């Protein structure tokens, strides 16, 4: 039997559906970026769509979790603003169809190259409403930039992959689109390239992108035009070598969306930037391709022809210096195993928020 798809049109209706649920519920925004989806009845949040508040003067946006990311980006850009954390579009990398939603962005804490300067999705999320596993509506945070009132469930919900509750509404702080962006590129070997990225990030020149891939080493600076010109020149002087200036838009979109890594399993590795080379080095003798973002702090790795998708090698190399998530492919657990203490706290939190254990059940351990 084809499973029934639940499509609530309001937060209240969603609450009733979760309260009434007899078995597991598998949550979807647009189904474009989930690392994993739980078993059971599919529940889609696309019906919770629409911008409820947009105040350009206060750099604030509040919208339903089902609101398409693209719709929000179009509204913002018309006012010269944006979501600064540069959420990736993972449809190609994860071989998905569908329409990315704000709820999915938050549930996966989806963050792109600008994270090194501007922070992650969670750093721009200022408020959230969600329905917990008992069907109760909960809010945390609000619509203001600075808020330390009560425990910060906003951060807890960001990146919780639907295991604590179904996000129904999100509030973001926004950023003005800078008037100018310049990308610097140079072709150097990996080790030297990663070293350049780290030096650039250690400079006062406010780099907003630092990546290494088939394109070589790439740096991005954004801001007022005179300032961008100055910083680009200062970076070239600091780092030496031959740098070419490019527009960079396609390059950063490709880094953000993990393009060019289409074969085999796909890993997303968060690590100490200086550990990046060693993590990829552990794959010597295995067919693989890698793109480095965040100055080496994020590595996208495609691995071919290993039974466990390369899990033993990658997770072994990253132990103690980061963690690896299997984004595409089989043969290993998607989420990295956690240390006992953290795992116990996380399990207990999920049991508190979802005592029936029905929301994206079991996907995070």
């Amino acid at each position, binding site marked *: 039997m084809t499973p029934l798809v639940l499509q609530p049109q309001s937060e209240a209706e969603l609450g009733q559906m979760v309260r009434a649920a007899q078995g597991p519920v598998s949550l979807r925004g647009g189904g474009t970026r989930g690392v994993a989806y739980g078993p059971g009845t599919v529940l889609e949040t696309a019906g919770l769509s629409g911008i409820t508040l947009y105040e*350009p*003067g*206060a*750099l*604030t946006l509040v919208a339903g979790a089902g609101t398409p990311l693209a719709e929000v980006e179009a509204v913002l850009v018309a006012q010269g603003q944006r979501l600064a954390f540069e959420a990736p579009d993972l449809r190609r990398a994860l071989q998905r169809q569908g329409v990315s939603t704000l709820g999915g962005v938050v549930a996966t804490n989806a963050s792109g190259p600008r994270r090194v300067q501007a*922070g*992650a999705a*969670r*750093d721009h999320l200022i408020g959230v409403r969600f329905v917990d596993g008992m069907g*109760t509506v*909960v*809010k*945390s945070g*609000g*619509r*203001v*930039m*600075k*808020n*330390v*009132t*009560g*425990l*910060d469930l*906003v*951060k*807890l919900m*960001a*990146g*919780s992959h639907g*295991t*604590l509750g179904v996000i129904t509404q999100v509030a973001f702080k926004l950023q*003005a689109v800078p*008037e100018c962006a310049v990308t610097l590129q140079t072709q150097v070997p990996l080790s030297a390239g990663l070293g350049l990225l780290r030096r650039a990030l*250690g*400079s*006062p020149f406010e780099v907003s992108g630092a990546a290494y891939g088939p394109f070589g080493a790439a740096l991005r600076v954004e801001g*007022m035009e*005179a*300032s961008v010109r*100055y*910083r680009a020149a200062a970076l070239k002087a600091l780092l030496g070598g031959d740098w070419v200036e490019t527009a960079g838009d396609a390059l950063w979109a490709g880094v953000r969306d993990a393009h060019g890594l289409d074969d085999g399993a796909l890993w997303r590795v*968060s*690590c*100490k930037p*200086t550990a990046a080379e060693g993590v990829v080095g552990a794959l010597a003798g295995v067919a693989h391709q890698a793109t480095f973002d965040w100055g080496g*702090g994020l590595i996208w790795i495609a691995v071919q022809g290993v039974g466990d998708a390369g899990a033993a090698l990658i997770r072994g190399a990253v132990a103690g*210096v*980061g*963690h690896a*998530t299997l984004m595409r492919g089989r043969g290993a657990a998607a989420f*990295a195993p956690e*240390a006992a*203490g*953290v795992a116990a706290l*996380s399990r*207990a*939190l999920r049991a508190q*928020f979802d005592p029936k254990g029905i929301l994206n059940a079991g996907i*995070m351990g």
Partner: protein
Amino acid sequence: MDMPLPDQRIVNARDGLIARLRGVLPADAVISDPAETRAYECDALAAYRCAPLAVVLPRTTAEVSAVLRLCSQMGVKVVPRGAGTSLAGGSFPTADCVVLGVARMNAVIETDYDNRFIRVQTGRTNLAVTGAVEADGWFYAPDPSSQLACAIAGNIAMNSGGAHCLKYGVTTNNLLGVTIVLMSGEVVEVGGPWSDAPGLDLLGVICGSEGQLGVVTEAYLRILPKPEGARPVLMGFSSNEVAGACVADIIRAGLLPVAIEFMDRPCIRACEDFAKAGYPDCEALLIVEVEGSPAEIDAQLARIKDIALRHDPVAYRESGSEEESRKIWLGRKSAFGAMGQIADYMCLDGTIPVSELPYVLRRIAEMSAAVGLSVANVFHAGDGNMHPLILYNANKPGDLELCEALGADILKLCVEVGGCLTGEHGVGVEKRDLMTVQFNPADLEAQLRVKDVFDPAWLLNPAKVFPLDVTASRRAS
């Protein structure tokens, strides 16, 4: 303000408790002489005082763990304390508690410029974190006004901000990992010198949890390369409304100053009398600071000046030297001290949507006049984080109560216009009973459930953050 009745069983067993604390800690780490524990009777919310049973000052995570395990076994409450600078009573003791101070844990454990972090013990002061990396051209961004004295432990507990968080974010945006000791004594490592959690973002809920979830003993902090330079500009306006409109225009124009500070007339006068900073005589004053190379600063200030001139400022002074920059900041930085000279004051901390600034300032003025207590406003305008200072006379019977009632009304106003009770100071005991203004029972219950996970016996930092009636059943069981 009500506090729960002390647990007499625990109070009566004080001597035994102290003996057992001495059994797990070095002799000088346990303070039990009432003359010495007096220093720990209050924090910066000095209107409230209560002597704890004892104070412990451990030097290591293992010692913290031993204390918590012991207290947990004995059912003794523990109040964690950084440097005791909380304005919200975040480390206010109870009569049946042990105060656990981390002040002696102030070492730098590791500095790593290549990976842009520093790892410290959390008793280290905020300014001493920057001090450890400054000579090499780096700094730690969150800069609460108390940064000379306040400890990283308290910064993490309260998710502290500061004048420059408009650009750099608050503590939670600059925290990479912690070592946290749970009430059970269990030591848990959360996060590290990399981005993202592999699973749930526990770090996100630990930061800002006001000592409800555990005692953070070590932290990985993001450090940043120091900007090439910074320059403030001072502008005076003929009304709060005009100054508020100028702030909105600067933000709307997409300029990102590192700080936009706002002072109203009562505050300007007090600061001028106190610090002689040479501020103009006007209704409202803004200090806007930008960073970068000299040329970048010039370019940004040119834009800001364009905007400011459209609002007919009565004064516009760009700093031309280090000395002038110092003078511009002098008044603002001495605002709290200046207020303390004229009167006792209560400092509020609500945040509002920036667009509501003029309305809220007008309402505060009306409410202040109706009650007959002066209110001076000095705050971070760029992010809507208000700091109304209500002046009162502690020696005048009834004045404190009047002040607290006005404070509560102002915070309710902040929530009413879409804001919150506290932007960077925390709830503590001070705003505990106002939480129901901002949160409904279900919202609060979700927070209590997080507390249940980390501290199931409800022994850590009692009677803070949550209204007492909301937590009564949990505390009793």
